[in-house]
């Protein structure tokens, strides 16, 4: 096995591919993304972590200080407000313990001390409020620093590991709800890779099998396959994706399954949960099923067309005639002689489909029809657009999503080109 692999690496095509430096760098980048996706799937970043508020709203990245007005907002926004609310509760000590802001906890002091800090902070706040525009008032700067220091006294000191995690989650700033942009951007890597891999694998297998069968058998098999793919390609791709995503978004799989199994609607929730778990996870409504259906219906067409054309060429080759004369069955010839000889085309198409799926996922999620209930680059871009981030010059959220996606797609584009150069140089 290992020997076969090493000899495959020594073939002329692979040598050509390996000598392409850009392609090798792209491959390393892709491997990094895939490893990241696997790590996230194993629980390195949970969905909860992406939804947790870790700091003030719209913090800039790299711990930038921002203008005095922004610093004032940030200092008074979250932790001071939360502490104040907690102090008005019936049991302030308990309420203070429940405050969480990412890794930040309220320090373990008597309630009176906390109250004193809050009062001090409010006094400084009142003084700062006298100024109409802090940005134009440099004399107020020491007061502002004092306010920040006073608010910081509320936090319990963090130990080393917690501090590292807290700083990391603030590295690229926060979005409009105070959630970590870095964590959300990285979690979207998993979504993109997952959707890309599932879609590309399914489409390539379906397209290759149908294409090879159509090309090899000809006759009515060919007619049916060509008929199916012309039908699907006669509807604009984005329109078909939107219609399928729309149709299956409101589709309650769990309810259907319950109906099929004859479970009454008022049955205990544990039973419903078990059935939900058996079929595609608990949260069927928020699942990726509509996205997979939409991509699965359209993405196999390109591969099918290419493999059909190649099969038409291959089936007239002498070795296929020889295999037929030797008495091998059609299925044997198809699976052992034809499809392996289209492997290079399958590989190239796989890479191209991955790019297509990742880009389409972002657009569908942007339109509100793709990923739901979890972060995705499309959702990040939409949020940034809806919240006026771009107009107000806050580029951290849209920038993170764009850069992460750009690097991945660029790497795949370079790799696809290199694969094409190495394995299919005559392609136009």
């Amino acid at each position, binding site marked *: 096995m290992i020997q076969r692999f090493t000899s495959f690496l020594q073939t002329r095509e692979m040598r050509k591919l390996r000598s392409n430096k850009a392609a090798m760098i792209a491959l390393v980048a892709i491997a990094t993304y895939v490893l990241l996706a696997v790590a996230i799937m194993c629980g390195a970043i949970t969905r909860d972590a992406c939804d947790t508020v870790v700091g003030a709203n719209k913090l800039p990245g790299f711990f930038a200080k921002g203008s005095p007005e922004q610093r004032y907002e940030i200092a008074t926004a979250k932790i001071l407000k939360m502490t104040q609310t907690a102090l008005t509760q019936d049991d302030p000590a308990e309420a203070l313990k429940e405050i969480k802001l990412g890794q930040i906890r309220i320090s373990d002091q008597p309630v009176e001390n906390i109250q004193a800090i809050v009062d001090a902070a409010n006094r400084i706040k009142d003084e700062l409020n006298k100024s109409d525009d802090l940005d134009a008032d440099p004399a107020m700067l020491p007061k502002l620093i004092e306010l920040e220091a006073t608010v910081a006294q509320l936090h319990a000191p963090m130990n080393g590991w917690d501090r590292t995690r807290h700083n990391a989650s603030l590295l690229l700033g926060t979005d409009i709800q105070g959630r970590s942009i870095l964590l959300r951007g990285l979690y979207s890597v998993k979504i993109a890779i997952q959707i890309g891999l599932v879609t590309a694998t399914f489409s390539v297998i379906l397209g290759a099998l149908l294409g090879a069968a159509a090309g090899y058998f000809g006759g009515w098999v060919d007619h049916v396959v060509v*008929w199916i793919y012309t*039908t699907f390609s*006669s509807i604009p791709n984005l329109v078909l994706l*939107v*219609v399928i995503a729309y*149709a299956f*978004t409101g589709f309650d799989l769990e309810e259907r399954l319950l109906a099929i199994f004859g479970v009454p609607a008022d049955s205990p929730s544990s039973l419903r949960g078990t059935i939900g778990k058996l079929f595609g996870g608990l949260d069927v409504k928020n699942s990726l099923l509509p996205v997979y259906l939409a991509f699965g219906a359209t993405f196999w067409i390109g591969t099918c067309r290419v493999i059909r054309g190649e099969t038409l060429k291959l089936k007239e080759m002498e070795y296929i005639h020889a295999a037929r004369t030797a008495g091998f069955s059609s299925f044997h010839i198809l699976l052992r002689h034809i499809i392996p000889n289209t492997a290079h085309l399958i590989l190239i198409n796989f890479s191209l489909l991955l790019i297509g799926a990742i880009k389409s996922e972002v657009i569908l999620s*942007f339109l509100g029809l793709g990923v739901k209930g979890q972060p995705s680059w499309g959702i990040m*871009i939409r949020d940034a657009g809806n919240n006026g981030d*771009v107009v107000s010059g806050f580029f951290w959220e849209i920038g993170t999503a764009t850069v992460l996606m750009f690097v991945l797609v660029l790497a795949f584009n370079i790799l696809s080109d290199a694969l094409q150069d190495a394995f299919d140089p005559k392609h136009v």
Partner: protein
Amino acid sequence: MFAFTIRKIIYNIPIYLAVVLLMMALLRIRDPVAGQMGKNATAADFAAKRVELGLNEPLLSQYVSLLGSIFTFDFSREIWLEPGVSVGEKLAESVPVSLALTLPALCLTTVLSIVIAMVSAFNRGRWLDRTLVFFAVLGMSISFLVYIIFGQYLGAFKLQQLVGHPVFSIHGYESGIQNWAFYLLLPVLISVTVAMGYDTRFYRAVMVEETEADYITTARAKGASQMKIMFVHMLRNAMIPIITRIMITLPFLVTGSILLEQFFGIPGMGYTLLTAIQNGDFPVVEVFTAIFAGLFIVSLIATDILYALFDPRVRLQ
């Protein structure tokens, strides 16, 4: 030739019938009535609405009546979201708007990318070619959304701040040729930027194939100028793949660009269609996809016929 054309048309009829049926079936997976009724609607209200919209009839009879109205060009069916407006009026309103956006974009993209592709192919392997290819790949790797958002930000918002008065519209539309540049030039430019990467690469590959042909060597040997070789000899020979690519994109001119139209608030076909799908407005979606599929199939047949005209071998298959 006549028999060939007839055969092609007959071959494509089942495809057309399937497209219309597929679209109808897909739309009906989700109950459209639920979205249009209030929370307190009773089962009787639902049934009444169904009858009003004609959804109580079996799928097959709805299918036949839809086909009937398409083949007789009768688009007088009322749309569900705006009472009193027919599908035909909606189409007549939105298709010209989409064309005003997509047609200039297609012309500009094609001309620019063919010129760049020729320059690139003629300098194959040199630094100019490599730089152009690099930028094409770079351009292809950025999401369409990012082009639109930053295009709108820089072109409409920042430019307005810089000059002091609006140069391009940020959102909205008015018809009329005098308003074209204000509302549509920026979307056209964004659309051209996005498409350039893909088109340049395709045309470059076509041209590279041609630069290796013998007739180029002959032309050089007889002393033809570089310009003449590029624009007369090479371009004429590369015309078939170019025409094919343009023919295939023609039906898409009508659909407009869903994303661009949505961002800039242009009431073209893409925007109308997206709103119709999201609100479950079946008449618009069904008629529109039926028309698009018709155009698509016609352009497929036309391409086949053009091929057959140029290459007699195709006719025998």
